[in-house]
């Protein structure tokens, strides 16, 4: 698997063919965020945060009431908008969702990994747990922030908190992949709230299994 150098990433950012272009926008400091000689692009903290609040809906179960599940996901979070120049504090052991300031779109022959920056890691901040980004993804990346340290951390929108490593994706014949995920759950999404836990097929099978083994 080939990892793109910063120069290769820059070339893909300027690709004339829209379909093959890698989009990371806005790159507020392109030289600073994509340093020559490296193999990654730094991404910044955006303006919207979702704080998990104590809830009256009980446990999260996709089988509790399938029709209502998206609503209960929404109820899990309290949204907080933090503009440039303001901050939000993540307390020890607190969990919250955040977004990249950058909007990202991957062409069909690139995938990426999002990795927390070491400096933040040393302060106790875990940035991302679902780190793989598939070809064809379009949207703002969601960070799953958790402060594992013992000190509250003040987070400012615009701070660089993570980096993206890009890899080429090839087809079976070794050529650049041309097929992107047609039904990617989060393609084009700018929202952080999860939409579903399982695919329709998995959901249906699991539901049947639950009914089969829990029938009275």
């Amino acid at each position: 698997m080939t990892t793109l150098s910063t120069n290769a990433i820059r070339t893909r950012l300027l690709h004339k063919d829209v379909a093959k272009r890698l989009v990371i926008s806005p790159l507020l400091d392109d030289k600073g965020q994509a340093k020559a000689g490296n193999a990654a692009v730094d991404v910044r903290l955006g303006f919207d945060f979702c704080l998990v609040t104590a809830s009256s809906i009980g446990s999260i179960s996709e089988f509790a009431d399938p029709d209502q599940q998206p609503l209960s996901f929404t109820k899990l979070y309290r949204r907080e908008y933090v503009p440039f120049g303001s901050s939000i504090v993540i307390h020890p052991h607190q969990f919250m969702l955040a977004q990249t300031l950058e909007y990202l779109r991957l062409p069909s022959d690139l995938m990426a990994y999002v990795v927390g920056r070491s400096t933040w890691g040393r302060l106790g901040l875990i940035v991302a747990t679902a780190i793989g980004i598939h070809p064809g993804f379009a949207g703002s990346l969601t960070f799953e922030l958790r402060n594992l340290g013992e000190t509250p951390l003040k987070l400012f929108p615009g701070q660089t908190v993570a980096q993206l490593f890009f890899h080429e994706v090839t087809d079976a014949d070794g050529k650049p992949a041309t097929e992107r995920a047609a039904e990617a759950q989060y393609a084009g999404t700018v929202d952080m709230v999860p939409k579903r836990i399982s695919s329709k097929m998995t959901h249906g099978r699991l539901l049947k299994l639950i009914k089969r083994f829990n029938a009275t």
Partner: protein
Amino acid sequence: MAFPGHHPGPRKWLKFVAGILETGRGYLSIAAKPTTKPQDAAKLIQTAEQFGGYAYEFLQYVAGADATQIPHQVVAPFQRWVDRLGITNTIFFRAEHLPNYELWWLDARNFSAAAHATTGLTKATTAISWPVLRVTVPGHAMGMLPHYAVVGHELGHAIQERLKPDFTPNQKDQSDCYDRIETRLKANNMTFGSAERVRIKEIVDNWVDELKADAVGHALSGPAFFFALCGFLELAGQGYGIGHTHPPTDLRRELLIQHLSAGASNFINVFQAKTGLKIDDAVNSPHVRRCPPPDALFTELCKAQPKVDAAICVELIAYARVVAPAIFAAADAYLKTNCPELVYTPEQLQIDLGEPLDLLCVLVPPIEYRDANGVHPTALASILNIGWAALLTRLDRMDDPSGQFGDPTARKMERCHELLLKAVELSEARRLWEECK
């Protein structure tokens, strides 16, 4: 309560409200002093009660201005329009869940002249540039981003006094109009005197102000304003839209189409060349009711409004059509002289409906654009036009968001709205970043 960005309007207003409450409490404190005579205390308590009442009333005015109600992303770009238009009044934007765009003025500076006004109230009053302006837009499901081009019309009202159309070539048209009104009134056994002349002037002024505001909206965002205004009038309007405050909707639409098609390289030609869609009165507002011939219109209007107003409105239509070019020319001249970078042009539309529109169809919001001089944030007017072009001509090419409920077209529109909001938010982020170099 979080207000969008660092927008100062709502905060200044809240400080003013706090100052009024504080002053009311001050009156109560004086009333409670043992040295205050009972009859004076009663008056002071009454005054305190009035201050309390005003404070709560004024507090309501800011409802809908917080970031959970109005899409917070749009406020800073609107404020840039305000600043570049030279509007120095304290302003805030708020949303309500109604199909309503409105510019509202309030001058409450006299409160600081109260006998026992506190320092807080005096300071808050001084910090406000009066009169305060409040712009209302529809919120939540009624607030699709491209529709916000109508805000240009409301800001046009804020500068309407500065636009000076030259009606001297239209004096004969004016006297003809007055003659027609007189004839119609007399034919209906009504008099035509000074009261009617005053009423004509009031209605003419109202209509001219509306057309000035339309002209400013058109200058700020071109076709996006046309689509947004006509779509809104079709949705919100009942009847023909004609009355003592507004000219009829079909006339306003007709005048906008005229100005969109003015010149060799015009908006209509560019839009059609880039999207295949010809802008006409069937686009986005096909159900606007057209005014019938004058006699039939007069009969209909008389059912709902005074005959004098009905006669004036019916006969003003022809006059408004004749003077409209002068109004649009005055708006264009003012904006091109004072804030030329705000005037949206067919050349810019040509650029916007090229790659940025193609990118939106593959889910990339028009956040910034690259030219020979580097990368620049996309202007609000460009985002609005790209949005309308996508909504009207490209929804079939956009992916249907999977895993969500509802009608596929509605889902795509919702996604388009979200991507455009993202574009507005992030283009503003780039702008702020560059301003802090």
